[in-house]
């Protein structure tokens, strides 16, 4: 349907915009900034905080600019006396309900409420402090997320995130009036509800009410302990996000500087999760081909297809709760983080001649669900906790600041070896479609002996931010041992964000679609939009990170996982071959059926 143009005036300046535009958007086009709290570019309009109110000529009340569509002839004033008084009142009201303790708050300096209070010079003493009379709870039961109701301004960004974007609904609004709050099912702790630990709510919470559980002090302690060797790994998406928290614009690739910073922080070995991403491709690719062979040649009907990726721990928890009858479809491969952890305290420790109990393994992740994953009881195949501490991108940035490192001035340094070399196929794990692309680059070549038929190995159809993507690859002129796949069309699908995952899984469960291989990432855009990445987030920022990831891939000397020399060395010296007994012991896992709520 064609959109009409609408003419209006904002602060006496005329502007023409498309119908359906909000007053807030129109004002932004004219560079009038209107403060917002409940509004978020990734979420549907709520219109509940009311700080964005503006005056509309002729209207009896002010209007919420984030929720008000423009109309012909409208005259808006964004900074009238009425508006300023109301706005100040509203911020003061929020603060009267708020446990203001900025100096000891995790969000200090990055809090939207704090900056508004600062901007409007509010007088906190005007109204009665209500916070002291209320019984607020701080829920720190989850290994990933802390929920502190005393800092909550009820903007419901988290609720909209968890419900619409993630289709989890772990958080909901409960009670009314003065007792209204954001709550879990029956107010159970976050670790015993359907929460996937994805951290998307944390990424969108404007205050310190939802934050990651940080392990910074524990990691400093380990670094300062002369008795232990601290080994760290960095996930693919961290290198395209970290810069944002250290003063750089989105889309900067900071791999070399990040490695230099980690060395200066005092980690004994600075290694790369990308290495185990390559390993995942060999393990998971082999698993897929084996499943296909068993299903197609041996006609084994117990083989579950489509096979689904298992690198995203938020997705794992989601499927365990919501589609537990599809658990056999999950690849048994651990995530790259956990593969790395299991190897750090076995293969790597042996290589270095360290006692496994003296190795502390730390991972730097774009993800809060990885904190939960590291704490799963089955993740102890090395005989110890495979990954001791998981830090988010944000926590790493904080450590770098604490250490007084001028990040931008750092030289670019290289990862340590072994377990520090990786391919371009590994770094694209950080973007939605990346695991699929990496797997196809390898699997196609194993089966046909030729490179995937895409220019520069770039499998464009699996890239980008469409919620659900599909592609089909025809296997032709297969090698003799894969002759049973001759002419077969490998059907693949990709989803990111759990609402999309839910849609795709419903279709799989109903049998309305048939695929061989499905990639799912819990977060929007994949790990680059993970719950541990720098705040703020929006599609434009995520797109910049994505572009950086594909640039990083294009610039790698090795582009395919099976050509990573360190991977070949690992199999030769330690694992034997993909899906070997030892590989199964250390690199594969199992899943748990969980209740739906």
């Amino acid at each position, binding site marked *: 349907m064609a959109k009409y143009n609408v003419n209006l005036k904002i602060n006496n300046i005329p502007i023409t915009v498309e119908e359906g535009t909000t007053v807030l958007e129109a004002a932004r086009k004219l560079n009038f900034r209107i403060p917002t709290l409940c509004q978020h570019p990734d979420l549907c309009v709520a219109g509940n905080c009311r700080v964005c109110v503006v005056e509309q000529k002729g209207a009896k009340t002010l209007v919420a600019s984030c929720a008000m569509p423009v109309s012909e002839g409208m005259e808006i004033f964004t900074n009238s006396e009425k508006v300023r008084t109301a706005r100040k009142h509203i911020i003061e009201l929020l603060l009267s309900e708020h446990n203001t303790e900025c100096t000891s708050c995790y969000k200090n300096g990055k809090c939207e409420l704090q900056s508004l209070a600062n901007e409007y010079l509010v007088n906190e003493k005007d109204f009665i402090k209500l916070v002291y009379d209320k019984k607020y709870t701080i829920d720190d039961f989850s290994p990933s997320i802390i929920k502190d109701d005393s800092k909550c301004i009820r903007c419901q960004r988290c609720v909209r995130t968890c419900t619409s974007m993630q289709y989890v609904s772990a958080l*909901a609004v409960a009670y009314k009036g003065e007792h209204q709050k954001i709550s879990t099912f029956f107010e159970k702790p976050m670790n015993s509800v359907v929460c996937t630990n994805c951290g998307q709510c944390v990424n969108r919470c404007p205050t310190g009410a939802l934050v990651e559980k940080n392990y910074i002090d524990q990691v400093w302690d380990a670094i300062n302990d002369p008795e232990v060797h601290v080994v760290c790994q960095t996930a693919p998406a961290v290198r395209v996000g970290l810069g944002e928290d250290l003063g750089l614009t989105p889309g900067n690739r900071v791999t070399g500087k990040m490695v230099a910073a980690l060395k200066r922080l005092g980690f004994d070995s600075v290694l790369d999760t990308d290495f185990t991403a390559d390993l995942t491709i060999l393990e998971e690719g082999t698993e897929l081909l084996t499943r296909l062979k068993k299903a197609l040649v041996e006609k084994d009907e117990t083989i579950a297809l489509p096979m689904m990726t298992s690198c995203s721990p938020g997705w794992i928890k989601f499927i365990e709760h919501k589609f537990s009858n599809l658990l056999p479809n999950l690849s048994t491969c651990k995530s790259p983080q956990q593969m790395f952890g299991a190897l750090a305290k076995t293969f790597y420790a042996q290589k270095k001649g360290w006692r496994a109990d003296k190795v502390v393994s730390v991972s730097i992740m774009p993800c809060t669900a990885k904190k939960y994953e590291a704490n799963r009881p089955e993740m102890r195949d090395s005989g110890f906790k495979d990954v001791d501490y998981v830090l988010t991108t944000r926590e790493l940035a904080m450590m770098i600041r604490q250490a007084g490192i001028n990040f931008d001035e750092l030289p670019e340094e290289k990862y340590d070896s072994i377990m520090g070399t990786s391919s371009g196929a590994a770094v694209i794990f950080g973007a939605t479609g990346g695991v699929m692309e990496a797997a196809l680059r390898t699997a196609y070549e194993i089966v046909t002996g030729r490179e995937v038929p895409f220019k520069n190995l770039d499998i464009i159809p699996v890239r980008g931010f469409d919620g659900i993507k599909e592609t089909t690859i025809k296997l032709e002129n297969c090698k003799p041992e894969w002759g049973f796949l001759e002419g077969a069309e490998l059907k693949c699908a990709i989803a990111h964000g759990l609402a999309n995952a839910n849609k795709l899984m419903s279709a799989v469960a109903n049998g309305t679609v048939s695929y061989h291989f499905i990639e799912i990432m819990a977060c929007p855009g994949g790990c680059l939009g993970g719950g541990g990445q720098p705040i703020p987030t929006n599609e434009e920022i995520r797109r910049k990170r994505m572009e950086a990831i594909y640039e990083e891939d294009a610039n790698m000397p090795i582009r395919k996982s099976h050509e990573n020399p360190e991977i070949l060395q690992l199999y030769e010296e330690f694992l034997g071959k993909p899906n070997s007994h030892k590989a199964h012991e250390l690199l594969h896992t199992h899943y748990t059926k969980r209740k739906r709520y």
Partner: protein
Amino acid sequence: MEKNRISKVDLIFENDGTLVNTVLDKVKKMNPDDIIMEMIDSGLKGRGGAGFPTGLKWKFTKAENSYDKYVVCNADEGEPGTFKDREILDRVPEKVFTGMAVAGYAIGARKGYMYLRAEYNFLLKGLIKKVEEFNKLLKDKGFDFNIEIRSGAGAYICGEESALFESIEGKRGEPRNKPPYPTVAGLFNKPTSINNVETLVYATVIMKYGAEKFKEMGTKDSRGSKVFSISGDTPNAGIYELELGMTVAAFVDEFGDGDTKAVQVGGASGICVPRKKFNDMIIGYEGVPTGGSMMLFNSSRSMYNVLKDYLEFFAEESCGQCTPCRVGCQQLLRGIEAVKKGEKDPSYLETLKKLAQTMKISAKCGLGQSVANPFISIVDNFREEIIY
């Protein structure tokens, strides 16, 4: 209308047994546009509180191009001091259903919902039986319309139209942003005409007697009559149907106990009229509008306690989603308590009045917007009672 006298009317509750059939048969022969013209002509304004012209609401809903449209009857009657809809539903439910059917026929809706207050569940069984009979009657008469009754969840806010829709849709009853208005996107996001119980009965009445007869009563801005729920310090508490346009003084003459110092017009969210203004205030849209509740207070009452009760009610019944209302109600309540206890200077009442003013213009829905009505009118007129 003689402003200084009250005038009792009997239109809402009269029922000779043939009325429903007469109205339905008459309407069936009319063109929907003519029905709407008749309604506009009558000057009937919504009796649920907001006072929007009913004919216009129907006209806007009819103008929308949609296969699905709805008629909703708001029977959530939650305003403190209001109990007239209960009486209507108990005594003449078929006149309410008829009003819904007329609305449905006029706007082109095939489905009607009645949203019944949870506290009125004792009426539910009887209503369901009657609505089944009524649906059958509609079918026999060739109307493509049927009515379903939904029971509320016990929250005052669910009487607000958009929260009511959310509630029927099975969601948490929180008011929506407006626009879009219900006539464009209401229940299930379809064009919806929502009316109060009493409004719908007047629609039936107007269809029977014609707009002219209705228009003869009341004033230019407040046509017709209205059902009042009268309570408080009065020897004659109860339900009365009165012609609109009388002064508060005339009202107090009839219903007061001789010692009335204030009348709260329109329930907790209405305006408090002190004795000195009884003579000037007209009960209607040109003066003090009301959804029906009239509470009389005599000199034994503490207006501080009255206001405190209202504020406690609002602090509890606000849905809690928007800042000005959720926190504002608590601040007003704590504020007058602090002034009373001497913890805050009396001048703090000025700060609170400014806050009430902010609530009026910045809250998301009518609940938060109307807290200023009782607050400012009681604080301004009974300042001493609040402070000492």
